């Protein structure tokens, strides 16, 4: 830890050492996210992807209610703040009237998998051509650490002080698994940003999702990021990353849940057949 703290104060002395630069689309402001939280990394990755794809002129993001409610303060793109759970309905409205635009939602587990489950399922079932970014940290961070739909059994939260008891509080909801079953889901993947390798893979997944939309490939690209919440979990960032690795990934295994079908060789469409 001491090395990191010392290094934190250092400027980059030699531009040759510069590995990664803040993308212009990520505003140069102090974020409200807690130290060590995965949100800030994902915010940045999305901006990198939009910048690299050159789609800022036609991209609209939809912010949720939850920890990412202020993400438009960091993402320098057109954004709309939705009511709790309604981000995908808002995104549907935008995408339907402006089909040439690139639309994405950025939602947490409470937003996407509890209060907004209906909107989530039906947006995906309609196969809206949008990107959904899902930050799953198994807790309501913004309101002070209450149980989320994705909270694992046994986990202590401010509303499950004895730990989540599945007979009283229900089971942890693996929404990505559910979503992958829907025909309208084009690409479903689960990633994490608790390691450098994970960050690179998450960026690749985001890039894939946005490319799917740009290419007009039908259906939702759903990128789940299993994230930490050091403040809500009441532990250090390092401990929270270890918990991800040693416990949480066992319940939410990383990797692709649904990949786009490979283009069939010369499969001719029948007359009148709908895509």
């Amino acid at each position, binding site marked *: 830890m001491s090395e990191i703290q010392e290094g934190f104060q250092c400027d980059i002395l030699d531009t040759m050492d510069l590995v990664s630069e803040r993308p212009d689309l990520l505003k140069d402001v102090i974020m409200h996210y807690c130290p060590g939280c995965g949100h800030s990394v994902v915010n940045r990755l999305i901006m990198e992807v939009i910048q690299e794809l050159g789609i800022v002129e036609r*991209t609209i993001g939809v912010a949720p209610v939850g920890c990412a409610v202020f993400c438009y303060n960091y993402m320098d793109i057109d954004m*709309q*703040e939705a009511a709790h759970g309604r981000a995908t*309905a*808002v*995104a549907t409205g935008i995408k339907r*009237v402006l089909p040439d*635009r*690139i639309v994405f939602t950025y939602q947490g587990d409470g937003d996407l998998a509890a209060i907004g489950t209906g909107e989530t399922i039906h947006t995906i079932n309609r196969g809206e051509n949008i990107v959904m970014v899902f930050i799953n940290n198994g807790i309501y961070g913004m309101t002070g650490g209450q149980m989320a739909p994705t909270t694992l059994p046994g986990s202590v939260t401010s509303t499950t002080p004895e730990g989540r008891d599945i007979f009283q509080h229900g089971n942890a909801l693996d929404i990505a698994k559910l979503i992958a079953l829907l025909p309208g889901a084009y690409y479903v993947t689960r990633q994490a940003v608790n390691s450098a390798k994970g960050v690179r893979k998450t960026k690749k997944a985001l890039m894939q999702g946005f490319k799917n939309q740009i290419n007009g490939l039908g259906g939702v690209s759903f990128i789940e990021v299993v994230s930490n919440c050091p403040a809500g979990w009441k532990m250090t960032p390092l401990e929270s990353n270890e918990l991800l690795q040693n416990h949480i990934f066992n319940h939410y295994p990383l990797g692709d849940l649904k990949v786009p079908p490979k283009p069939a060789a010369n499969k001719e469409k029948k007359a009148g057949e709908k895509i």
Partner: protein
Amino acid sequence: MGNKVLMKGNEALAEAAIRAGIKGYFGYPITPQSEILEYMSIHLAPRGGVFLQAESEIAAINMVYGAAAAGVPVMTSTSSPGYSLMQEGVSYIACAELPCLLVNVVRGGPGLGTIQPSQCDYFQAVKGGGHGDYHLIVLAPNSVQEMSDFVYLGLDLADKYKNPVLILADGALGQMMEPVSFPDYQAHEHRADHSDWAARGRENNRPQHIITTLHIQPEEMEAVNIRLQNKYNDISLKEPRFEALKTEDADILIVAFGLTSRIAHKTVELARAEGIKVGLFRPITLYPFPYRHLEKISESIESILVTELNAGQMIEDVRLAVEGKVPIQFYGRLGGMIPTPEEILEKIRSMKQESRQKELI
């Protein structure tokens, strides 16, 4: 005006919306307004708009929120229980100051209620509905022709004030057929561009547009509220609309809106045939309510009868208008029941009788 065609109120409203330049319709089936949804599903896409049946009224209003934020002319329609579900979204749209058209074809409540016509959602429409200090511009048609006309008016007002506009109809107006003609209205001359604020991508590298209703600092939230209240004051000065019928020599004034005003119109004729001088005041904008105009007319009135298809909701605004200077009585039918002109006439007769007795004393 073009030739007259015979249409249902719901269909006339939907046709007018397409002619007025609506480019997005999001809705969910509910009686007695499903004809709007069905009409849109057939006619909107071939004429350049987008129709989508949502999974709920909650989703529908949030689709409207998204499309309106993109600066696109957009609408939804529903009936009472569905409109209750939309209230969260309506509050967001009002706070974000987005133009759009909402339609509530009211049915009897509370609860699941009945599918018969009612005016029991007056308070919800006029006094709030969702959370927070906001107002919609509320228009109350009383004919199939006005179901059409108020769509154009509503969209013009929505654009002018960047405010959601609600057409408050009822099941009878939605279902009944009457001749209607559609005006020569060039939608492209009316619909605003909104590119100065709409969130539709940072075209030409312009600064970011944010559509939000979150203002976490109370000073900022208060400033937003003050801006909204200034707008509402402006609207209440410039936009009250009403109709006054035979009020010049009237002793008794009936105040009624929407469907009830048509029934009361007949009552006025019946009463005058018996020599009772009755007039009719009909608010067309329920918000802004035409307080000053009603107050002025009531100066020469002996008494007022408010009649509504509810337990007495608009009567509160009538009381505010006349400030206790004129005695007010009420006659209402509830739960989807509609009074006949004769029923209201009976009430008028008893009011006349009372005033004669007072004169004798």
